[in-house]
């Protein structure tokens, strides 16, 4: 239906918009990466604490579900020794770095990469390369007053697991 608001032309809308996405264009967000979150059914795991907000429970359950899918029992620290060489992985890397920058600004993200290296999520090669990516990403909408919290680190682990899965292919 021509006027169905659910079927608007996204490309036309984005073209009409003057502002530019901070990281590349939509073409750099391939469907394979973009649909990573395309969902399975909501988790039945409602957590142990009935007073916990439903959205927080759903968020953690979704991450746990995805990590379980990516964890084949053979992983070793550092989980991501080097960055995978793959075009799809490049897009995923930018998406991750952009996410962190939007959440807390570049300075906090640099600290986070150091932290991930210390706890064995990143190898030194991967951490060094990520710092170089970080120097190329900025966004005026970044919440520079924010710090990265535990949920943000969970999201980072999610990205690391997905990037590591590229290395195993």
């Amino acid at each position, binding site marked *: *239906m021509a006027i169905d608001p659910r079927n608007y032309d996204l490309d036309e*809308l984005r073209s009409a918009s003057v502002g530019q996405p901070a990281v590349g264009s939509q073409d750099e967000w391939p469907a394979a990466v973009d649909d990573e979150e395309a969902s399975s059914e909501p988790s039945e795991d409602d957590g142990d604490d009935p007073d916990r907000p439903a*959205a927080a429970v759903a968020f953690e359950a979704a991450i746990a579900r995805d990590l379980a899918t990516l964890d084949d029992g053979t992983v070793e620290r550092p989980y991501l020794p080097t960055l995978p060489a793959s075009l799809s992985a490049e897009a995923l890397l930018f998406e991750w770095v952009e996410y962190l920058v939007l959440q807390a600004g570049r300075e906090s993200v640099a600290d986070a990469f150091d932290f991930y290296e210390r706890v064995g999520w990143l190898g030194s090669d991967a951490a060094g390369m990520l710092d170089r990516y970080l120097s190329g990403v900025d966004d005026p909408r970044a919440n520079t007053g924010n710090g990265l919290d535990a949920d943000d680190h969970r999201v980072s682990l999610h990205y690391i697991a997905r990037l590591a899965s590229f290395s195993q292919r």
Partner: protein
Amino acid sequence: MSEADVESEEDPEHEGADTGGGGDEPTPIGVKLGSTRTVIAIPDGDGLRTVKTLTCLATYEDVITGEEKVLYGDEAATEYPDRVQYTLRSGLPEDESRAELTATFFEEVLEANDVPEDSAVVYAIPTIDNERGLANLESVIEGSSIGEALIRSYPESLCGSVPAMGEGLEAVDDIFVTVNLGSTNLEASAYRRGEQLIPFTTGAVTGNEVDRMIANYVEEETQGRVNIDNTTAREYKEIHADFVDFEPFTDVIQQPGGGSHEFTIERSVMDAVDEYVDDAVEEIANAFLPELANDYIKVYQLALDRPIVLTGGMTCIPGLVEEFEKRLSEELQRDVEATAPASPAESAAVGAQRIAERLVDAEAY
């Protein structure tokens, strides 16, 4: 004919706009055909003029010519309360008869306000899963005299968020959650660079339901002495509801047997809107956001660290945005921020007009 409310305002985004459709480019226009109010945003010099009118009409016979005449908007509601028809009561025209009435209403508004035919029109439309209603609305839109150059539609929640997020189309480049607190629906969506994610709609928490609750509570508060209709209840809500500085108010009704009765309302209005905010927060915290968190981990996390954009008529109640923010933060056990456009009732049409303007600039017609 009726005269709708027409306001003009400076629009910093709008430069050298065509005011009458007489130039080379079509005039970019934004339209929201709402269940309670219809708003049309039209370029006017360096700014916009907005036409606002109740989405209703009444017909009467001219006593001299015998011709059937049409009144719309506030005049229709005030002068013919017994026969006025709200043509989009459920958000979309439910049947062909409603579609015809809506078409008549819309043409009357367009004609009375000189809305140019050579135009590119963007409609802000609620995301309701109602194929028949959408087909009926499509017939109204396609049959209208405007939009000769281009017709597009976008979700009302996206259009309404545009003025809240900047002076241009920043909303199309951003990641955020928006909640439209409308008369007939509560809609929530996340947007990721213009892409709508997890559109959520419920008809259980609505401005119309608040009106019904106010009418019931007024009857209770006056020990059954006062019965008001939903239109009066809506007026009480629009005039008196205030989370910041509510003051009890008095009104007078005429008794059926003669005489009048004066009464004071202390609780009925605020009890109803207070319950409404609780219900809205409950829907967002426990239905919409868990679904978003489950399906879009990063969008959920990013969006909650940014202001949630509230739009729709209920957002006009003073202090409602802050109250929603406080209660949602408590429910989620984390601090969230809420924001609203400066003129929530007009924001969908104004946002639609900005999109139309950019489509004209991009020569999308």
